[in-house]
């Protein structure tokens, strides 16, 4: 099952996604990147039904870039999140709803870091930490217990039965790739 997690710190947002692209029982790819870069400081993480994820995420990605080309400045994370939500909601009651669960993470110069949780019914919530997937059942309770808003980098640990994760961090300077976590790194 696919898994996404995001944690907001005082001046950064940390996001991680698993790397598996599966088709029923067969793992088609084990190094699949589920994060879509909307702008220099906004990442969209997308899981859900096979073709819908890429179609919807790329649609949002191209439109955010188009906004920047038309208007000369980028959308803020809050605006991007609301735009995404509006699109998802518009398609929800059409004949082709998109079954995708999203996390949108970004850093705004004025508002600081922000993490937005969105599900396939286009419910949007800004949250200090969020997760999607079966792994969410386990990690959310851990985060509930141990999360502190002033947590600094390096304080995160989680264990799941997925082979590897992509981890990225967004802060004032932009998006940074952290090391790709594999099961071996926890042993």
């Amino acid at each position, binding site marked *: 099952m696919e898994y996404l997690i995001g944690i907001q710190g005082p001046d950064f947002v940390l996001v991680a996604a698993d790397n598996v692209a599966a088709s029923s029982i067969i793992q*088609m790819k084990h190094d*699949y990147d589920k994060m879509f870069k909307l702008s220099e400081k906004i990442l969209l993480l997308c899981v859900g*039904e*096979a*073709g*819908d994820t890429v179609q919807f995420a790329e649609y949002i990605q191209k439109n955010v870039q188009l906004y920047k080309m*038309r208007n000369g400045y980028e959308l803020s994370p809050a605006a991007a999140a609301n735009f995404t939500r509006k699109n998802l909601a518009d398609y929800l009651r059409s004949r*082709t709803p998109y079954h995708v669960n999203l996390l949108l993470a970004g850093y705004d110069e004025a508002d600081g870091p922000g993490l937005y949780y969105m599900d396939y019914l286009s419910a949007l919530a800004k949250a200090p930490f969020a997760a999607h997937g079966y792994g969410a059942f386990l990690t959310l309770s851990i985060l509930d217990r141990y999360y502190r808003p002033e947590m600094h980098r390096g304080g995160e640990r989680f264990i799941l039965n997925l082979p590897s994760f992509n981890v990225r961090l967004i802060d004032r300077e932009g998006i940074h790739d952290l090391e790709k976590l594999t099961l071996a790194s926890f042993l």
Partner: protein
Amino acid sequence: MASAEYLDESPIEFGQIRVVQSSSAMPSQDSMEPTFSLPIGLPLSSSHSVPLPFPMSHGTTTLAFIFQGGVLAAADTRSSCSGLVACPAAQKILPIHSHLVGTTSGTSADCALWKRILARELRLYQLRHGRRLSTGGAAKLLSHMLQPFKGTELSVGGQQCFGRERSGPSLYYVCSDGTRLKGTLFSVGSGSPYAYSVLDQGVQWGLTVQEAVSIAREAVFRATYRDAYSGNCVDLYHITSKGWTRRNREDLKEEGVHPQWRVSFSTLTVETARE
């Protein structure tokens, strides 16, 4: 002149069922709304599901992988129709142009049709823009053309293989449910789990052409041995920077139960592509 207009049309207009009328016109800019107006969205699929006459599945084994000598694609040749072998000599690997080959899985008619549509669109792209579309672009084009039919029980599972040009060999997996993945090894069809187990063991970058061919044959053979819907012969295509070459179709009947290979490449005849 009719042909000039034809050349100017966008490829995405073809073959799609739309409720909304043509979306290529930009919304007018004279409204008081800010310039960030919602563009007309993704194409909608408006066709209701037509019940199929009988249940269909991907009764096939196709595989493709990249190695140092280019890309190798292999497939069985059995075309099945829920328990009946409709054709023991079907062709599941269809060349699209001299450097692009696609494998098919799922409904044969759908796959053949969409491969032809893709070949047409790639040729039009080449005429319009003066260069060939990359494999990734071709895969994306196919994926977008199939997107309106999602949920209508169209069944296309295909891979595109491209020989070494510009950026090296590449392999994409495209499926009618919208999946599009870039990778180095894929197998599609009901026999794919069996093929995967053989391929995962043996495929590495540094294989010679002969070793790669023998692994591909072994994988298809193993899959046809176990899977009822795969069988008969094996087709092999090898794609390099010079184009694709087709190995002679080989019957797997004589292989028998033992996996010892009587590899006799001297008897293979090789057809080279003519542009």
